[in-house]
């Protein structure tokens, strides 16, 4: 019983948790090799075999999905076509610049079809646009957190004179501490270097 308690106690330390999680997840992944896996051929938004469009010499390979600019929609196999009124228009659209590049060379398909218009844009902005909104919100939140931390903690605060004055006072009052700390950190660094070289 006491050993069970000790075992349980290991779960209570935050530092162990990511490693525990990785272990559990890794063990679960082994199950992925044991079950039968196969790709269901009936997928949404299927794409042709790689390089067939390139070999056929289509100028906007590998993203040619049919349709004509502003006159006929392209092909999109969406989940709920009834929910998207102008389905297929975006992947047939090409901005004027893209159109110009298309006539120059057959090797710029990717850039042409990722400038506004194209299948990926159709999926990203239209049929699954809500996903993209979320993705970009995740992005925004992560950057807000990072920039907040950077401004307030980790960056050089040249413009925040108040803060710096406070810090300087603190530093002066604790200069002996500082000395010790610097020394110690150097010692640590040295030890670490030694460990690395060993």
């Amino acid at each position, binding site marked *: 019983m006491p050993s069970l*308690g000790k075992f*349980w*106690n290991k*779960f*209570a330390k935050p530092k162990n948790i990511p490693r525990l999680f990785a272990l559990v997840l890794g063990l679960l992944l082994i199950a992925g090799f044991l079950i039968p896996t196969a790709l269901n051929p009936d997928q949404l938004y299927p794409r042709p075999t790689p390089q067939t469009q390139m070999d056929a010499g289509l100028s906007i390979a590998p993203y040619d999905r049919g349709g004509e600019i502003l006159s006929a929609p392209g092909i999109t196999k969406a989940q709920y076509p009834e929910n998207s009124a102008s389905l297929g228009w975006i992947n047939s659209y090409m901005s004027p610049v893209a159109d110009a590049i298309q006539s120059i060379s057959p090797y710029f398909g990717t850039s042409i079809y990722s400038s506004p218009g194209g299948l990926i844009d159709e999926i990203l902005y239209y049929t699954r646009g809500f996903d993209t909104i979320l993705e970009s919100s995740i992005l925004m939140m992560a950057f807000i957190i990072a920039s907040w931390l950077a401004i307030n903690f980790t960056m050089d605060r040249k413009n925040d004179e108040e803060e710096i004055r406070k810090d300087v006072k603190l530093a002066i009052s604790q200069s002996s501490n500082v000395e010790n700390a610097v020394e110690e950190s150097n010692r640590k660094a040295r030890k670490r270097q030694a460990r690395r070289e060993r």
Partner: protein
Amino acid sequence: MNLMADILINVIIAFLAGSLLLGLHRKVMARVQLRPGPPIVQYLLHSLKFFFKEVSFPKTASMPFYIGITVILAGIWVTGVIVGPVAKGSLMILFGIYAIFKIVEHNSGSSSGSPYGKLSCVRAVFSAAGELPLFAVIGLVFLKTGSMNIADVIAYQSAHGPLIMSIPLAAIMLFALILTKSPYSPFAITKGKDIVSGFETEHYGVLRGYIMFSESIAFYILLWLFLTLFFGPISVVGYVIGMILITIITGVINAITPMLNPNHSVMSQITIAIVCIAGTVLMLVA
């Protein structure tokens, strides 16, 4: 009958019956520990008393929240009565109510600024794991009966016999949850006496009244859920006897067990849950 009247009556029944059961629980514990113990009606009197006491607020509290949380607590348990005994609705909603209960527990602890409340709040997060048995139970009930609606579950039981016969380990798991929620339980880390009264420490007066009101409804609903899910359509007398029995059993258990340390409490609940889930799945498959 009028729906509103139905709800009102059921809430009152839940409150009064829950209070009496909690009083009985305390009495049983006292008798096991060879004390006379307070009268059974004492818990109810306490709850009523608090409604007439003066309210005071800590200077450090997080203001609208500190009050709002108790109102929400009472609100969710009234919803619990509506979903459970009145409408016999989805088990998922009851599960959601338990989740919110956890949050309220958590937050009424932290909103006061008291260190005891804070500890209780952190422990509430720890013991979120205690909800895992409930989730497993309703999952297993769903797998067995094919529906989450309590009315459907009752109908299934009247056709196929009570569920306690077919999935007894799930019943044990839910019983462990009842044990967790009962006062002075070995698992009740959020209200352990080492942190005074846990999350309720700083709530006085009407606010405390609301909390006690909700606690009695919560206890009643949990017992009701247990009896309904596993013993099928039983009569009122059956409910009364069942509730009293469970209360007595939990009282005896709580009286003779010490409180576990938070981490051990969580992990032992999880262990019970895992063992019971594995056992039930094996039984279902076999």
